């Protein structure tokens, strides 16, 4: 791929304070404006780590031989792998990483599973923003695709933005 992948050379910055000043505040977020995103190569290691964190043990995600004989003909990622993909497919200055961002709710629809080796892309934007009980909300919508252009899943979330 011509475009740099987020899993490549630069390691993931785990200090979310570091680029805090580069990120858009609630005031700067324009509903409808696309967010910058990065393609991400999903590895079996990343899937296994996610599975460990939530206690997923289904062989479809972890056991290649069993998965091959299963309904998808090979290993797949659990549907909720978008939890990882949201951060893997966005750059360090993305406002989803602003310290103090509080998740208020999410809804996701699942089409086909992501698979290890897939190069995942994200189309994302803020769709709306509003103020409720003195809190600053943003509504965001997100669609993840595989390298064939197939929709993996789509979702809408609400976060309360730091003041």
């Amino acid at each position: 791929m011509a475009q740099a992948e987020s899993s490549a050379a630069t390691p993931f910055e785990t200090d979310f304070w570091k680029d805090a000043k580069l990120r858009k505040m609630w005031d700067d977020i324009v509903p409808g404006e696309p967010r910058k995103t990065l393609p991400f190569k999903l590895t079996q290691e990343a899937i296994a780590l996610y599975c460990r964190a939530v206690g997923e043990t289904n062989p479809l995600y972890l056991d290649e031989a069993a998965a091959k004989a299963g309904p998808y003909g090979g290993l797949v990622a659990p549907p909720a792998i978008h939890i990882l993909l949201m951060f893997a497919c966005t750059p360090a200055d993305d406002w989803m990483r602003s310290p103090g961002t509080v998740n208020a709710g999410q809804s996701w629809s699942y089409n086909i599973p992501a698979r290890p080796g897939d190069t995942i892309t994200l189309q994302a934007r803020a769709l709306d923003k509003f103020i409720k009980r003195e809190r600053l909300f943003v509504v965001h919508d997100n669609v993840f695709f595989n390298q064939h252009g197939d929709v993996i899943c789509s979702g809408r979330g609400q976060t309360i933005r730091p003041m």
Partner: protein
Amino acid sequence: MTLANFDALKAGDTIDGPAFAVSRESIRLFCDASLDYNPLHLDDDYMKGDFGKTNFGGIIMHGMNNFGLISRMLTDWALPAGAIHRRLETRWLKPVKPGDVIRPAGTIKAKQTTAKSRWVLVDVAVQNQRGETVAAGEAMLEFPASAKAS
């Protein structure tokens, strides 16, 4: 727990998932797995401060950890019957902290047959060890008509 058999399912039937012990380590592991290193989940000093009118008093679990546990419950129940986890909507009601033990559960709400498939709606919730509901929502599962729901 109710079997995932479309014809036999009825409103009020229940499903559940295993208990999940929340610790500083489980939250840190979720940071690594999700790449969500928001200081809400890492930094005790930061969490001593106020968030508007809210003070959490210490680090809190990722809301999406609840989401992952509900999703695990649904797929573990549905996949062996050839059913597919198609949608999950959740909202977070209370923070979850290290030392809490949480558990997801679901209650069948409705069944729907459409032109091309069959669907089950499930009310889902996660409760802590005090019986408080920390997350709630609704899920939709597809039971393809061709699948053998044995």
